[in-house]
């Protein structure tokens, strides 16, 4: 699982440094104990082999493309082979005398490599293989040897865990800075668009609004685009998900409905409601506006009022309207119209919906949601 972005590069460097340091200790052990080994010359040759392999892995793991299974398996195999050769060069006597096996800590190299590459599980797997080999070559389980195996297992697990954490944290940081860059870019675009495109679109609309035919149509289109662009650069896109009680600005939610045909009036300060409440209320407003569009369309006005004890949203249109008794009739016949859907939503919120209409003079819907004591 090669990590994107190279957040694991310092970890690989640390592994290489560890192997070199461990090799240095191996040399110390060799110099100190060589005279008690059965074949000191062979031991020296084995340490030379370890040095070569340390160099090979340091170069090999430095390139992301080479950090695959072939190198990992070869790494483990070479170290296991060196471990198996150890009792032969040291001799039974030296081992029984309790001398440390020649590779000492150096044999943890593949464990760290596997852990950095694949996390806890691979680290633990490599540690088990090497630990078992180490114990088997000694021919007996001394407490020191057993401790060594356990420490290696723990190192595999811990390093694997930390490696994952580092990579994840790095990726998060990268995502965050990308987001920040995108926001800055949008702000810059918004300023530019405001200074140029919006002004020209508004001008086109104004100059052509009273013309007939194609020119008037173009002006109308320019006006629509002006409104769409303005709401786009204001960046009023609310986050899709969030905790149900996190406060949300109702103006932002309803801002999506504003257009050339729908005017939105609101206070200058945010109108905060728990997000679940705000979403339900916005859905009810959306239903009312859909209804306006369905019945002859025309203009509509939305007013948000933020009072101490309640939030009120009014929707007014100048459409055909309907006689006052038609609502009652519809309910009596068991037809649940848009009005009932809106009322239902508001009742669920503990609020009220007042709907009034006169034929020919449009419809007014007033939705009120009480503010809960906080």
């Amino acid at each position: 699982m090669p990590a994107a972005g190279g957040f694991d590069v310092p970890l690989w460097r640390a592994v290489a440094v560890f192997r070199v340091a461990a090799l240095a200790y191996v040399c110390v052990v060799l110099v100190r104990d060589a005279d008690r080994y059965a074949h000191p010359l062979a031991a020296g040759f084995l340490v030379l082999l370890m040095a070569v392999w340390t160099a090979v892995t340091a170069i090999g793991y430095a390139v992301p493309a080479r950090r695959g299974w072939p190198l990992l398996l070869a790494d483990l195999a070479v170290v296991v082979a060196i471990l198996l050769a150890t009792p032969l060069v040291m001799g039974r006597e030296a081992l029984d005398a309790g001398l440390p096996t020649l590779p000492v800590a150096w044999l943890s190299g593949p464990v760290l490599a596997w852990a950095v590459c694949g996390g806890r599980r691979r680290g633990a797997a490599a540690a088990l293989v090497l630990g078992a080999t180490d114990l088997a070559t000694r021919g007996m389980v001394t407490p020191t040897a057993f401790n060594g195996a356990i420490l290696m297992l723990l190192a595999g697990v811990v390093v694997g865990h930390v490696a994952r954490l580092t990579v994840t944290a790095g990726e998060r940081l990268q995502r965050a800075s990308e987001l920040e860059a995108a926001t800055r870019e949008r702000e810059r675009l918004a300023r530019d668009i405001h200074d140029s495109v919006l002004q020209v679109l508004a001008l086109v609309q104004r100059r052509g609004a009273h013309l007939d035919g194609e020119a008037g149509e173009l002006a109308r289109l320019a006006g629509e685009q002006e409104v769409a662009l303005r709401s786009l650069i204001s960046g009023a896109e609310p986050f899709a998900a969030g905790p149900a009680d996190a406060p949300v600005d109702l103006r932002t939610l309803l801002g999506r409905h504003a257009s050339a045909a729908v005017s939105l009036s609101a206070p200058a300060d945010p109108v905060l409601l728990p997000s679940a409440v705000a979403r339900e209320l916005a859905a009810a407003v959306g239903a009312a506006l859909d209804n306006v569009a369905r019945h002859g369309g025309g203009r509509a006005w939305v007013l948000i009022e933020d009072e101490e004890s309640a939030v009120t949203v009014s929707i007014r249109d100048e459409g055909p309207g309907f006689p006052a008794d038609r609502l009652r009739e519809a309910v009596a016949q068991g037809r649940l119209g848009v009005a009932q859907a809106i009322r239902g939503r508001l009742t669920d919120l503990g609020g009220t919906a007042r709907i009034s209409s006169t034929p020919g003079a449009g419809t007014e819907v007033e939705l009120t949601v009480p503010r809960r004591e906080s």
Partner: protein
Amino acid sequence: MNGVRVMVVDDHPMWREGVARDLAEAGHEVVASCGEGRQAVRVVAAARPDVVVLDLQLPDISGVEVIQGLRAAHPGVRVLMLSASGEQQGVLDAVKAGATGYLLKSAGLAEFLEAVRRTAAGDPVFTPGLAGLVLGEYRRLAATNDAPGGAAAAAPRLTERETEVLRLVAKGMSYKQIAERLGLSHRTVQNHVQNTLGKLHLHNRVELTRYAIERGLDG
């Protein structure tokens, strides 16, 4: 009323020319046009416009500063704000600083000319959006007033009738429609709307003075 003296302040040359041409065709006199706020404040006394058509977002100084400067240099000048972005706090601040009219730049030509005429005549030009902002501002002031240790200078309040009228403006009704619905004369509705702005201007001036005095005593 014909031949209003108008000054156009907007940093967009194309827009400035377009507006000036529209105004001239409608029989008004464009006495000055500038692209910067400071320049506008410098020339306003010499140009003596009745109405300044002001873009709220200028490159050098804020809309509020321009309005204060214009009114200080040429008392009695009326300001009609235009904005392309509908940014809310800026509009509200400009109204508190003394602008009496507000239009979105996307408003139609007829609507624009009507707004210039009415601003010159001293009628406030409200969009539904501005009415919503003013309503919100009165509610905010009332809330700070009720708070313990609230403002020493009592914040202005709307009468019930004024609130009723302002709500109907915010819902997009014309003065004529409001007059019909409430059984009032057109003139009375207009007066109510005018009062809502007048109280805000006055309160703003009191607040500014108090702020200046406090600063002076502290310094």
